[in-house]
């Protein structure tokens, strides 16, 4: 059977992704040359700091993207970070257990919270309300469990999460990831040949290969000699996993269908309830991951304030990245860029010695501008 070539241009991602990438590059360029930053912005040190600072937010934002895609939201992630961190800290400090046990306990709590949200949301209770309840309750839970006292320090074995992997391992990780990415590109090409589909254009292949190589090179430039921080490693892995899940798995495609039109999705035989619960469990587990990362980074937990406002920062990052709060549109790649833009702005403003209260005002304005950009592009 001969099949005509698809007459449509191949996809090169959502245009807003490209815009966001350009915005990020532009920001970095400006911050690099502004005299007020004294040339420190584009240094290895600063980029490493920037990426470590972005890690917790990125992990949460990836999960947030998935629930926003299905017209949901999770307002409880900040409090969830405190609660899961508190649980892990108690397991270590009060029960004297090892880091793996503490981590497992934190993750389990995260999964349970997510499942709880998903159970309600899948029964038609607005996610906003369900997770607003969590926003209150988990902060309270963390305070009750800890006796409203700071928990510190974590045991030494927990510090792995705040450490770095050696340079050799960094090369190995980046190399493996790059090979996997390239292999996937060529596997796609082979599979299309096998099914006699129009071959991937040279441009598509070139774009994908260049993108992957450039990304790997950037990471190596920053981390090759000092070793990659575990926080960045985790965030990177979560991001790659998130892109894969949303773009290439049945679950991920169903997120877009449900967000775009839940009724049509249900009538097409998609298990809307299960998918909804799945998305909330994912954001719950990722909240726990972030909670553990943060507990390791600050070496303890301050139950009353740890993770404060993280939920809103995550929503901001997701929206800057072009994901629609109305659901059905957006991408994890956009969220990664949105998170980096968000972190770059605060990092940059610190270098420019902008007052932290003023920073809040700017961040708010930038959110509006970003939404306007992604809206304007659609019409």
């Amino acid at each position, binding site marked *: 059977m001969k099949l*005509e070539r698809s007459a449509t241009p191949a996809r090169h991602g959502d245009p807003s992704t490209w815009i966001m990438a350009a915005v990020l590059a532009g920001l970095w360029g400006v911050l690099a040359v502004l005299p007020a930053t004294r040339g420190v912005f584009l240094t290895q040190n600063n980029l490493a700091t920037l990426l470590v600072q972005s890690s917790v937010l990125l992990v949460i934002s990836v999960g947030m993207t998935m629930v926003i895609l299905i017209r949901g939201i999770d307002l409880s992630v900040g409090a969830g970070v405190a609660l899961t961190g508190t649980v892990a800290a108690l397991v270590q400090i009060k029960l004297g257990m090892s880091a793996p046990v503490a981590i497992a306990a934190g993750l389990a709590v995260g999964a349970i919270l997510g499942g709880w949200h998903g159970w309600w949301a899948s029964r038609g209770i607005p996610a906003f309300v369900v997770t607003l309840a969590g926003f209150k309750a988990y902060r309270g839970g963390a305070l009750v469990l800890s006796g409203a006292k700071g928990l510190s320090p974590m045991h030494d074995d927990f510090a792995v999460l705040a450490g770095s992997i050696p340079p050799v391992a960094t090369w190995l990780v980046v190399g493996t990831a790059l090979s996997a990415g390239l292999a996937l590109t060529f596997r796609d090409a082979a*599979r299309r040949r096998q099914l006699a589909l129009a071959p991937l254009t040279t441009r598509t292949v070139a774009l994908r290969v260049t993108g992957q190589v450039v990304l790997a090179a950037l990471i190596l430039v920053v981390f090759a000699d000092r070793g990659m921080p575990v926080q960045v490693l985790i965030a990177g892995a979560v991001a790659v996993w998130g892109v894969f899940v949303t773009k290439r798995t049945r679950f991920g495609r169903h997120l877009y269908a449900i967000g*775009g039109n839940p009724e049509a999705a249900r*009538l097409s035989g*998609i298990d809307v309830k299960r998918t909804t619960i799945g998305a909330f469990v994912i954001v719950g587990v990722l909240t726990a991951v972030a909670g553990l990362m943060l507990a390791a980074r600050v070496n303890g937990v301050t139950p009353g304030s740890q993770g404060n406002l993280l939920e809103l920062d995550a929503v901001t990052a997701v929206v800057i990245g072009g994901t629609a709060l109305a659901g059905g549109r957006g991408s994890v790649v956009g969220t990664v860029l949105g998170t980096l833009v968000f972190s770059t702005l605060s990092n940059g403003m610190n270098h420019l010695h902008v007052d932290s209260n003023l920073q809040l005002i700017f961040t708010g304005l930038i959110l509006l501008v970003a939404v306007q950009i992604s809206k304007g592009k659609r019409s």
Partner: protein
Amino acid sequence: MISLRKIGKQFPGVRALHDVSLDIASAGTGEVLGLVGENGAGKSTLIKILGGIYEAGTYRGEVVIDGVVQAFRSTLDARRAGIAVVHQELALVPEMTIAENLMLGREPAKFGIVDAARLEKTARAMLADVLGEHDPEVERGGLGPTRGIDLTTPVGHLGVGVQQILEIARALADRAKVIVLDEPTAALTDGETAKLFELVRARKAEGASFIYISHRLEEIRELCDRVAVLRDGELVTVTSPDDDLVGLMTGNSDVERARVRTGSVWGKTVLSVKNLRVAHPNLANRAVVDKLSFDVKAGEVVALAGAMGAGRTATLSALFGTAKAGMHGEIRVDDVVVKIASPRDAIAAGFAYVPEDRKAMGLVLGLSVTDNLALSALGRMSRLGVVDGARVELSALARLRELSIKAGLDMEVATLSGGNQQKVVIGKWLELAPRVLLLDEPTRGVDVGAKAEIYALIEELTSKGHAVVLASSDLPEVVRLADRVIVLREGSPVGTLERAEITPLAIMQLAVGTVASIMVKEALDETRA
């Protein structure tokens, strides 16, 4: 006189309208001007310009009313100038009541506080005036569903047909000089359509003019004084309704006309429904479908006919597992009793469903053609939850060709014409090779060409042994496709027509009952005379 002068409109990469000039009488004597053309011919663009949706300055040419060039900046401007547009898509607020919807934007209020009682009274007067509900003679003619309705019912609880009537009533109440009706009968039964025509004629006699857009050429012939034919954004001609409209629209006078179904080979019984009862979603002890039994053989098309609310859609949606208040009865597929509590159960049992409202229920408008075609079969095209993108694309390509969907794989479904969208809704099921296709109004709002293609497609599917249950308010469509017609009235079957007995009149007689049927017959005879 309302004149459109050399109207042109350009979209990125598409010339939607080019040099269209039209006059519509608007004072003294009214007229009904038909506007026909295939989907994409420019009808919608033209009325959006006339109705102020495309602001002055975004198109070329002029809209002139009584010698004055108009520059509409909004629909409100157009309405003030005497132009009311009833769009194909309903513009009612589902959560608000009938009265509130009728009075939207002109609520009686003091100091900003709405006088609810007066609002309802005015709305009722408006409805009565427009529909002539006080006139018992008119009442019998149709529009039954609006009679005795509580005006405080939220509009969302009403059927599409009733909503459509409300919207038309709202436009008529404006006393506009020119009223544009865009596919007003798409959701109406024949009785309701007859009533609408009556209203249009009455208003015409009072001096109002209409622009009437419809894919149903028999309606154009019946109602219109003149017909403007658009093709590819240009005005082909303004002609008599008795001209060869299909030929003018398609630019090909040899276009294939209604072809009657030739007997297909019928296999064994695929679907057997016994004593189906579907509970009323809101009222206990009431049923929207009751005592319904029928069989469908492989290769057969069984049509459910009846007035709006007779239980056609309720039957199909119950078979697909979406009956809100539950159902009873025995359903067998290939002689195996199946239990259907959800769409997933129904799909597993071999059903596929093409719902009446494709945008709300059939498609994810923001996703691509490929993604929509893969909606129901993604599981089959994945391994360990990972989607095989190449297989998805291969299957989508096959659908594009099988169904001659004129669209690219990556195009957003929202940008497709109605006909192509409908083919996507049908196409998304084919990968699953369903045993029974449940089709609800499969050609609503699609153009003549796509309609013929969808009919051909249905015939091809039956020839492959699929069984089809069709629900349609379009009687020529039922006659064209059905091997057997089950006529429903208030949820129960009142008669079955076999192949040779299927005529629009026979269906109507059963659907509206014997007393009324005499009136219908008279009405039909009258229109023929």
